[in-house]
């Protein structure tokens, strides 16, 4: 310390008087790193739907339905966005009861640049919106190649109100029934949407497949993918985008985000191996379609646990996800005989359910000390949490199944669900949208 330091004391003190205020403001301020991170994650999650899921699904149908299939995902980017802005966000995230949010945020009233946690409220809103886009889009895999465009639109809008907004509120909303971190009665661990996104869409998909019925020519005709390269691009973009989905669900650019990122990647990789192994043994050859479907299955499976489980647990979860989803798609579906055209149920319903259960098993306080030192998952001895996760799964199954059934009946009785046979034969691209995917024009 230099001799004249004390002389500077007054100036120092002046500076110091500013400090507490500074600190206080800081608390109430946006953390730009978190904000940037969640904005990037929002972009990544949008990329999952378009082009990701649209391509993944689009490549799997016949060429005459390629545009219509992509369009089903794409329309969610438009329709769910407007719905979310007007009322959906409020119903999901405004304070309300245990089941549904209130109307405080109607028309995004009061949702501005001010902080919500460490990010801007608008950032939080738009990040959550991207989940509300992809979830209904996932369902469309079940009724590909035969659904009416108008019927699809009406179904999706109703589904948003009756299934998605309530589910999002129950699991992530303030005071939601299943919200483990905000006083939910049956607190579930669902890091990034195993119940809200995957079980809800997957189970609804199954009901759709059953109610709408099989495609003409299924299964005799051996309907094959029109373009696996398109599906490949889609699956890879899903994988990349899923980092936003899962790691972004940390809502901060912290160690939990890193941990969720790693778990996500590991599960996808292990699931590729799981699926391919099953294929190799049962079908004689490991296929590219198997590889990419396995990856998606792994990603689905790790979604609820991404921020709660260790990297090694993620490998296990992913590997099991690959195996089980392969079984459900290749064996069970054929046995039961429903036409879940692109395996929305087989991958998202089954994978989501398995993941939610395994989250209850593998969640670990060493990874994420969500309960302030108390054990998290079954392996740490928290049986209650495991049971809660089971209850959450059950409730989601029931809500999604019943609601979807009723909505389908309503749509069928009004605008109609299915195109007529001639249109189905000619293809949805031409009959629903008046265009064709490719032209051979010279």
């Amino acid at each position, binding site marked *: 310390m230099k001799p004249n330091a004390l002389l500077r004391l007054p100036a120092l003190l002046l500076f110091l008087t500013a400090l507490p205020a500074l600190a206080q403001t800081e608390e109430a301020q946006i953390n730009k790193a978190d904000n940037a991170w969640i904005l990037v994650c929002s972009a990544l999650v949008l990329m999952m739907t378009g082009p990701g899921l649209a391509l993944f699904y689009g490549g799997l149908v016949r060429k005459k339905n390629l545009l219509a299939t992509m369009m089903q995902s794409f329309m969610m980017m438009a329709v769910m966005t407007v719905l979310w802005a007007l009322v959906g966000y409020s119903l999901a995230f405004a304070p309300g009861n245990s089941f549904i949010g209130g109307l405080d945020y109607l028309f995004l009233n009061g949702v501005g640049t001010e902080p919500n946690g460490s990010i801007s409220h608008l950032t939080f809103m738009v990040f959550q919106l991207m989940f509300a886009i992809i979830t209904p889009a996932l369902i469309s895999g079940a009724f590909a190649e035969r659904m009416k465009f108008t019927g699809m639109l009406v179904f999706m809008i109703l589904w948003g109100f009756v299934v998605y907004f309530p589910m999002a509120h129950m699991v992530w909303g303030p005071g939601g029934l299943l919200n483990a971190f905000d006083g939910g009665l049956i607190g579930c661990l669902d890091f990034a949407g195993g119940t809200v996104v995957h079980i809800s869409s997957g189970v609804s998909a199954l009901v759709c497949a059953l109610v709408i019925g099989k495609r003409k*020519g299924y299964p*005799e*005709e*051996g309907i094959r993918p029109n373009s696996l390269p398109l599906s490949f691009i889609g699956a890879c973009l899903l994988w990349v985008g899923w980092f936003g989905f899962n790691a972004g669900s940390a809502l901060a650019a912290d160690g939990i985000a890193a941990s969720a990122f790693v778990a996500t990647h590991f599960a996808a990789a292990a699931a590729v191996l799981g699926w391919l192994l099953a294929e190799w043994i049962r079908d004689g050859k490991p296929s590219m379609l198997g590889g990419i479907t396995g990856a998606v299955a792994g990603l689905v499976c790790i979604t609820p646990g991404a921020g709660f489980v260790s990297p090694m647990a993620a490998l296990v979860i992913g590997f099991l996800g690959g195996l089980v989803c392969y079984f459900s798609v290749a064996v069970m579906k054929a046995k039961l005989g429903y036409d879940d055209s692109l395996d929305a149920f087989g991958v998202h319903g089954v994978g989501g359910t398995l993941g939610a259960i395994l989250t209850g098993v593998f969640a670990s306080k060493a990874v994420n000390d969500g309960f302030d030192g108390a054990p998290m998952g079954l392996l740490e001895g928290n049986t209650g949490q495991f049971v809660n996760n089971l209850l959450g799964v059950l409730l989601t199954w029931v809500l999604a199944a019943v609601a979807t059934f009723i909505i389908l009946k309503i749509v069928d009785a009004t605008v109609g669900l299915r195109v007529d046979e001639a249109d189905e*034969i*000619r293809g949805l691209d*031409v*009959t629903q949208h*008046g*265009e*064709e995917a490719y032209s051979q024009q010279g």
Partner: protein
Amino acid sequence: MKRIEAIIQPYKMDDVREALKEIGVDGMTIYDVRGHGRQKGHKEVYRGQEYEVDLLPKTKIELIIADDRVEETVQAIVESARTGKIGDGKVFIYPIEDVVRIRNRERGEAAL
């Protein structure tokens, strides 16, 4: 020997092949073509510009067959491809002079 060409609806392909298999007709060559006839086309619109599409996707099955099997082959195709709607397609029968199997240089009906 005759050459039989059948232009059918693409989605009828599996049925026709099944029918041909049943009567023991196996060798064939397939073309993806577009056809125009009485079947109505459709309108496509790209950014407001209309475009009348009256060439529809069709599948052509071509088979060269011994004379004595022509009639039953044509029957098999017609029956399996028929829906009774305009656009079901047509079967054409042509003369052919000779066939050579590249593998072993066989000629004539033996080469089929």
